[in-house]
């Protein structure tokens, strides 16, 4: 009798040890276990817990994916070189294209203004927002954007210019900022789509031109009909290199 009891005890203990080992292995490997030593009920509950864990993991991975995508969207994908356009003689910039049809673009640019008749050269900073209502694909290689609209803010980085009037002036003496200029413009763009086999980094290469005017010009033209329209219009040409 005692012998029988001891055998049963050993068998039960063996089962428990077996089960515990299987469970721990299951957790480690993150998958279901097969084993003759496990009872049907135990197997079922095991499968449920695995499923829950997998769902939790999927959500986690989705979140990580989203997180990475969000940061990845901050990687600029447009590089621009522009001549003239009221933001410098030559300006370089990085930008982001976004929107369902890539209809929005935001660029930050640095422009260089040579000395001409000033004692120093100037640098200027520009924040430019572009909206492209239509993009027409002509063929495998070419597409045109027949019109784009742009607004941009430009600031000359020099102490000769001020945003807020210096303290030496009575309050509201001039009432404008010589440093910040607000511009609006229109333009057109032609894009070459580089075939996949010929790509190095860029998948698109564009050439554009645009006309723009600034706040102070508009004011003076509004007040004086004799000012020729061409005097308040400024032309720019540029090239753009789009990665991704």
């Amino acid at each position, binding site marked *: 009798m005692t012998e029988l009891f001891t055998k049963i005890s050993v068998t039960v203990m063996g089962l428990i040890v077996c089960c515990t080992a299987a469970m721990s292995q299951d957790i480690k490997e993150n998958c279901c276990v097969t084993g003759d030593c496990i009872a049907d009920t135990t197997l079922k509950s095991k499968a449920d817990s695995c499923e829950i864990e997998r769902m939790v993991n999927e959500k986690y991975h989705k979140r990580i994916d989203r997180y990475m995508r969000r940061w990845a969207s901050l990687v600029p994908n447009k590089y621009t070189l522009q001549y003239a356009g009221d933001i*410098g003689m030559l300006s370089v910039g990085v930008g982001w294209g976004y929107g369902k049809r890539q209809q929005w673009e935001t660029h930050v640019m640095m422009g260089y203004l040579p000395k001409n008749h000033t004692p120093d050269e100037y640098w200027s900073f520009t924040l430019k927002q572009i909206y492209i209502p239509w993009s027409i694909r002509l063929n495998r290689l070419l597409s045109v954007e027949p019109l784009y609209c742009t607004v941009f803010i430009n600031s*000359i980085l020099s102490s*000769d210019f001020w945003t807020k009037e210096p303290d030496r002036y009575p309050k509201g003496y001039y009432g404008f900022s010589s440093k910040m200029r607000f511009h609006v413009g229109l333009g057109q763009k032609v894009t070459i789509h580089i075939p996949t086999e010929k790509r190095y980094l860029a998948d698109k290469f564009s050439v554009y031109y645009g006309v723009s005017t600034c706040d102070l*010009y508009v004011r003076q033209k509004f007040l004086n*009909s004799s000012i020729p329209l*061409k005097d308040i219009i400024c032309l720019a040409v540029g090239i753009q290199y789009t990665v991704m």
Partner: protein
Amino acid sequence: MHGFVGCFACMMLSACDLFEYHPYSTDINGRTNIHAESIKQIERQCKDKSVIRFAFVTDTQGSVDELKDAIADIRKRGNIDFIIHGGDQSDFGLPKEFVWCRDILEASRLPYVAVIGNHDCLGSGEYTFKYMYGNPNFSFNAGFVHFICLNTVALEYDYSNPVPDLKFIEADKDSVLVLNEQAADSIVHTVAVMHSRPGDEQFNNNLTHVFNYYLEQFPGAGKNAEVYDSGIGDSGAKKHAFCVNGHNHCDDIRDIFGNGMTYYGCTDMSKRVYYIFTITKDGYGYDRIVY
């Protein structure tokens, strides 16, 4: 085909004008260093004249249409020797504003000079002014009248530059006295032109009396003056050196220091007014023209 190429070339050339680097870029086309040529012309044309007559326009500050009308009116008169702009050609110091004013003044076909105003100093404006006109302190002799044109907008420099430049005034006075020593009474009258005058917030008011003292040394001023009514023009003004200024956008004629030196404060272009000063050896007159 040739027509097409020509048309395309014309379009490209006119497009080139449209390339602008920045609203404050001093890369401007057209006539520059104007004072040098204008002064030569004034001195040559007025050399033996017994009557010197100049028109004074000031503070355009964006009233380009009004300036255009004023210059057309001045041109029609046919008896004006030259034009002086009293400063503030620009509102924001933009090179384009200087160009607009210059092109209108050019259309007068008369020699013209300009003093610098406080608005002209904004941004890169001061450099545009210097490039377009020359030194903001300058002088010339129109026949028997000495004109001394001064930069007086000290506040723009935060009082850190010699504005008004007393060294320049002193050297100029000496040069005039030398002329008079060489040929007696070759210069008998003086006109000082400035944008802001003593007492204005732009003027370095620590120097008002010193400034006045310096101006009193010129022919026709201070001890050198004979004061009497000439009866010429609207004002029936006196025989005495005088000053012309803009800046305050109002008519304000005053003998600030009580020494016979009248300051003719002239109003801005938006009021559609300009001024004609007529000077003879017997005295001068002043007319305010509403057009």
